[in-house]
């Protein structure tokens, strides 16, 4: 799963994101959000693991050339983690001459202004309030490019959405962002949704099947008509 790429090797077209989150559920979601947005993803469960992968952990006496660390274009990390917090990780990355150019985004379930300010002051590119949505990842793509591997990132401030309200310039989740309206296909289901009595589905003729949650194999006989995300804007 982890890839070791040469520093001077081929720059792939896909941006590579390092995702850090101690929650397995959140890791799975962020990984999928990023992949569907055409990013390569490496997901780890701790700041320490992230530093080890980058080659920035304290085990090394120096960021020596014989260790080829992971090449990443963006680091997205949860704030609240046991051991090393996302904030600590941010400080370590920004404190490194080699890695401080990599944009770091903080995620948190708590919308605490002083926390957001602290992270931005420490050099975080953006702060996302969980749960993370596709619109958040779309926004991240604005400051993700393989060019940041070589060029120092412009101090763009990162937060779209101007200086609205207290706290200065954070793209806080507006009410419209909390719904999925803008992602859903404009074409309504082809089935008319008339109100039918909510009878138990076990009325159906099929034989009892094992709990779907323990055997997640679904029938693939027919194409699943889901909204296809093109990923790019």
């Amino acid at each position, binding site marked *: 799963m982890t890839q070791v790429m040469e520093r001077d090797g081929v720059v792939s077209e896909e941006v590579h994101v390092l995702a850090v989150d101690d*929650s*397995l*559920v959140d890791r799975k*979601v962020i990984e999928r959000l990023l992949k569907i947005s055409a990013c390569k993803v490496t997901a780890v469960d701790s700041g320490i693991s992230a530093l080890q992968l980058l080659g920035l952990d304290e085990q090394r006496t120096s960021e020596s050339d014989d260790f080829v660390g992971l090449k990443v274009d963006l680091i997205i990390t949860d704030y609240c983690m046991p051991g090393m917090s996302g904030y600590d990780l941010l400080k370590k990355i920004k404190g490194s001459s080699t890695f401080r150019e990599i944009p770091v985004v903080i995620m948190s379930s708590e919308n605490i202004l002083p926390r957001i300010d602290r992270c931005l002051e420490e050099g975080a590119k953006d702060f996302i309030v969980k749960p993370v949505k596709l619109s958040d990842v779309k926004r991240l793509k604005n400051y993700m490019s393989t060019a940041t591997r070589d060029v120092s990132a412009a101090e763009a401030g990162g937060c779209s959405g101007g200086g609205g309200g207290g706290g200065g310039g954070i793209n806080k989740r507006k009410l419209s962002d909390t719904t999925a309206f803008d992602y859903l296909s404009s074409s*309504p289901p082809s089935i008319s949704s008339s109100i039918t009595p909510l009878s138990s*589905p076990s009325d*159906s003729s099929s034989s009892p099947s094992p709990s779907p949650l323990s055997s997640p*194999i679904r029938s693939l006989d027919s194409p699943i008509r889901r909204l296809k995300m093109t990923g790019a804007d």
Partner: protein
Amino acid sequence: MEVGQMQRQWIDYTRSLFIEGFLDAQFLQLEQLQDDNNPDFVVEVVSLFFQDSHKLLNDLTVALDQKSVDFKMVDAHVHQLKGSSSSIGAQRVKNCCIAFRNLCEEQNIDGCLKCLHQVKQECCLVKNKLETLFRLEQQIMAAGGSIPLMELSF
């Protein structure tokens, strides 16, 4: 039952889950992340959640059973549960966790115990609801149908 009927049932059932607050928009986000290359994504994430929550609820039960309750630890567990329930759109579980955290702050043992009971119930409820939903989906696909797209227009 023919496919059209099953699809209508799916629509009504899904709609009821939103109206009754079991699920919120984040669940729809998850559905959008599913495609032909990842046809089981939602079931997988939801399964992970229930594995996770099962452990957390056990840990909470033990923690609240101690002679001297470590509220910091209880809060940490609830925080985790709140986070993961929020990530899958399990709204009622999440809201329960929010109330739970307030009680932790107050160091209210009785309140916490009541809340724990409630959270367990909510997890159980949403698990059953989602199992029913997924079973419906399996039946629709087995019959050669496809899952309708859901819009939050109510």
